[in-house]
């Protein structure tokens, strides 16, 4: 049960912080998402985020900081394999499945459903 509790607590914590930002700084959701992705990238390069992933599992990978973490890990891996070329190619290589799925499923569901009239 521990992995589930850890995921709940850390995932919940990241969402709670974002909620405080929304309520007290009037940041829009789009700004929060951008902030979270870039924070994930920077923390990963500083070597701080992967230990969090080890500890909290999906609690650290499912929030958008985890998307930044995947991009950054991809770049680091790319650099190890291809050097300078990997700086450019590594990020999207690692996130290809997630981004392609989001675009394709997003398109599919937008075709299948229509927004309800208010």
């Amino acid at each position: 049960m521990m992995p589930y509790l850890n995921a709940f607590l850390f995932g919940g914590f990241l969402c709670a912080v974002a909620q405080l930002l929304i309520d007290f700084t009037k940041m829009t959701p789009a700004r929060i998402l951008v902030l979270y992705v870039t924070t994930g990238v920077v923390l990963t390069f500083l070597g701080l985020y992967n230990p969090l992933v080890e500890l909290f599992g999906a609690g650290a990978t499912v929030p958008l900081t985890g998307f930044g973490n995947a991009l950054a890990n991809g770049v680091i891996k790319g650099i190890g394999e291809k050097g300078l070329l990997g700086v450019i190619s590594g990020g999207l290589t690692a996130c290809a499945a997630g981004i392609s799925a989001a675009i394709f499923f997003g398109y599919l569901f937008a075709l299948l459903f229509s927004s309800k009239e208010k």
Partner: protein
Amino acid sequence: MKNFSKKEYQRIVSQHEKSPWVKNLIWAFTVGGLICVLGQFILTTAKDMGLSKEDAGCVTSMTLIFLSGLFTGLGLFDRLAKRAGAGTIVPITGFANAIVSPAMEFKNEGFILGVGAKMFVIAGPVIVYGISSSIICGLIYYLLKGGAPL
């Protein structure tokens, strides 16, 4: 039952309206946490089926994206999001919702500039800043490492 004067009643109501942040916080924490628990369940299941750590992570993202896209289409996501706020926005579910929701809404503007373009109103900036920051940090990392193999 206690009788409130009109003034007192308004004071209490406005107090609650002014600071719903505790309620918002609890909702965001709980729903966000539960979405991550669902993610953990998918991740564990995928690993048990013999997938590598990276592949299991991909399967988790894809499943959550699929589900939140479906629930957005059915109109259930927005009902939950109204209460859960950041609890549904911050997990990858919010990213998928941000793609499907405007794509559906702008369908009447056509399939190219309506659906095709509006999908990226929020997802676009996320990808732009995510990739750009990873390249900038990657370049610094590469140079600090002495710029080894080219």
